[in-house]
């Protein structure tokens, strides 16, 4: 700290008195020599966003994207290992996958209410679960987030990890959330029918019903405009779904990484271990929540409105 204040004093002195060049140069050398020794000058804090590691043309490949690719490779290998030799009498890896699959199916059945419906939605939801789960857990492996390189950025020097949890980047979670909500809406209008599904949001039918039923039930003139307004709120709800899905997952995983690095700063040995276990649990819970919510959105979109 002393040298820094000295140098600023010197800068001021320089501005005032030009001829003291020799002294200035001496000071500058001193500064550059001291910089790599003191860690304060390299920013180590976890950033809210994934840092670009290298460029492909004008496409920034971030560390989170790298991790995501790793996830894809892992799932690819696992799926191939299972799918290569599927036998009617299960053996080895197939056993575990069947248990997971059957459990997930039963869980999904409890939400959708029927196996037929589950079969339509299940592959998507299960994939979301596995993708998010592997991404969450990959971020916890030692080395991910701690191995990297130092890059000069906006004057200061910044430590950029080579890998970063895939779901610790809003791009990943936002992509998943957008996909989930869009797909649930598409599923909705395929199963319910375009006109019916459209009326869920822009309730034209509610107004068309008024002249037909007004004699039977005069209150309809108040009720149906309210219904139409509720439909408009549903549009906001769809946007809220995207926001809640993406920010919940991102927030949890990112917070976990911050927590772990904070613990490591306090005391690098033993202390982070319980928190790593905690993060393992958080990883599976968040994956489950994301997948279950997607399943619920699909189920709601797939059932006709009953009022």
């Amino acid at each position, binding site marked *: 700290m002393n040298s820094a204040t000295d140098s600023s004093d010197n800068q001021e002195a320089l501005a005032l008195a030009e001829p003291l060049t020799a002294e200035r140069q001496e000071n500058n050398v001193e500064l550059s020599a001291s910089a790599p020794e003191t860690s304060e000058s390299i920013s180590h804090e976890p950033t*809210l966003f994934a840092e670009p590691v290298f460029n492909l043309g004008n496409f920034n490949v971030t560390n989170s994207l790298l991790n995501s690719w790793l996830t894809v490779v892992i799932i690819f290998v696992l799926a191939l290992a299972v799918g290569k030799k599927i036998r009617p009498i299960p053996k080895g890896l197939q056993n575990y996958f069947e248990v997971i699959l059957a459990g997930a199916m039963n869980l999904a059945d409890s939400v959708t209410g029927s196996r037929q419906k589950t079969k339509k939605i299940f592959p998507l939801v299960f994939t979301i679960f*596995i993708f998010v789960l592997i991404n969450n857990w990959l971020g916890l492996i030692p080395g991910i987030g701690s191995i990297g390189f130092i890059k000069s950025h906006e004057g200061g020097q910044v430590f950029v990890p080579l890998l970063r949890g895939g779901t610790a980047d809003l791009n990943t979670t936002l992509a998943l959330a957008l996909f989930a909500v869009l797909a649930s809406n598409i599923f909705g209008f395929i199963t319910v029918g375009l006109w019916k599904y459209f009326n869920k949001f822009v309730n034209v039918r509610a107004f068309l019903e008024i002249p037909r039923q007004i004699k039977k039930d005069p209150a309809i003139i108040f009720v149906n405009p309210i219904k139409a307004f509720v439909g408009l709120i549903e549009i906001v709800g769809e946007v809220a779904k995207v926001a809640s899905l993406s920010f919940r997952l991102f927030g949890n995983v990112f917070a976990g990484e911050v927590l772990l690095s904070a613990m490591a700063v306090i005391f690098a040995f033993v202390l982070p271990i319980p928190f790593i276990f905690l993060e393992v649990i958080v990883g599976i819970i968040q994956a489950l929540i994301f997948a279950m919510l997607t399943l619920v959105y699909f189920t709601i979109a797939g059932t006709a409105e009953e009022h």
Partner: protein
Amino acid sequence: MKNMDELIKTFHIDWKLLIAQLVNFGIVLWVLYKFAIKPLSKTMDARTEEIEKSLEDAKKIEASLAQTETERQDKLDAAKKDAQEIIEKARQQGERQGKTMVDDAKREVQTVIAAAKEQIAQEKQSMLRELKAEVGTLVVKATAKVLEKVTTKEVDERLIEESLKEVKRQ
């Protein structure tokens, strides 16, 4: 809109990255569906079906086994009944046959006895006849012998007549 821009800047949201992550997810979806979920659920369903079928088959087999068992029992019972009947019939027949045989024997005995009696009677008759003849001749001889010495011609004739009469009457 300004808030939105700030959001995008804070979190470094990049549509290229979004698309890249979507592509990742798409690959995972395709791979998982193609290699794990679809074939696994297919084999699992097939297995469930097979087990259900086997259980049903086992039930069927058990039922048919029970049926054959009862059928066997029925047949056994019927055979037993038949055997009983046959034995009963044989016994009755034997009885009847014995009775007829005894009857026949009795009848034969009766006829034999009757024949014997008749023969005896006939023999008696012939013996009597012979006896009579012999007695006659004896009487004739004896009387002749006696008359040779005592009787006259008249007496003689009368005696002859009388005895002739008697013989004739007989």
